[in-house]
């Protein structure tokens, strides 16, 4: 089903937004408020991202899916903390490219990847992942 006009315009908004969030001032704002600077479009602090670890039971041999991850948040923190394998999905390709850079910067590029996909039509077989994380995605 093609997206509604409203949904399509919101997607265009996010594609444009992720292209801008890499700027120095935008990263400074993110660092001051959220404690990180992955080029985020959201409200999840480091403390709030870390809180998800209590529920996800992650470890190096488990596979985490972060849906609507943008530039890889909070999945990058969860995978960096736990050693798990990470797949991030979202729609804007520029955001996912940014996520790959974040993974490389954290030294976890070999166990992390991105897939361009809408959360309502994920291209994975059942039971591919052991845990799922999300932030400000579901409706």
């Amino acid at each position, binding site marked *: 089903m093609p997206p509604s006009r*409203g*949904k399509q315009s*919101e*997607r265009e908004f996010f594609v444009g937004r992720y292209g*801008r969030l890499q*700027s*120095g*001032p*935008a990263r*400074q*704002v993110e660092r*001051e*408020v*959220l404690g990180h600077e992955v080029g985020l479009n959201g*409200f*999840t*602090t480091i403390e*709030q991202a870390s*809180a*998800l670890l209590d*529920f*996800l039971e992650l470890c190096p041999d488990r596979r985490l899916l972060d849906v*609507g991850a943008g530039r890889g948040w*909070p999945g990058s923190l969860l995978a960096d903390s736990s050693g798990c394998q990470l797949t991030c999905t979202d729609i804007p390709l520029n955001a996912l490219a940014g996520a790959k850079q974040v993974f490389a910067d954290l030294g976890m590029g070999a166990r992390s990847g991105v897939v361009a996909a809408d959360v309502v039509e994920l291209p994975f077989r059942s039971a591919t992942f052991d*845990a*799922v*994380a*999300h*932030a*400000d*995605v*579901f*409706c």
Partner: protein
Amino acid sequence: MAGYIVHTPAGLSAAAEQRVEELVPMDALADGSPVELAERAGFSVVTCDDVTDQFRTTCDAILRARERHEAELRAVDGDEVYDDDQRRKVAVLTGIDEGLLERSLIAVVKG
């Protein structure tokens, strides 16, 4: 599965729903209780914690930080983008203060 959901409170009036629609053009805004959303999707809820206070604090802090860096942000993004981003953040803050927007941490398991 665990994460954060921005949502409207359960049981909003039609007028309040209209106010949300006008105020907050968020694509990823859940309608009503995240517990009901999760259970309808076939999950069992492990916990659902209200984090709206933190949400408000963060949104307000983002607005203030963007005001501190206004000149730099305008120089990089342009006036239209800066003003639009500020309007969106103000709208979210207003929605929270009017009791129309909440944020929850929800953890669920299958079945």
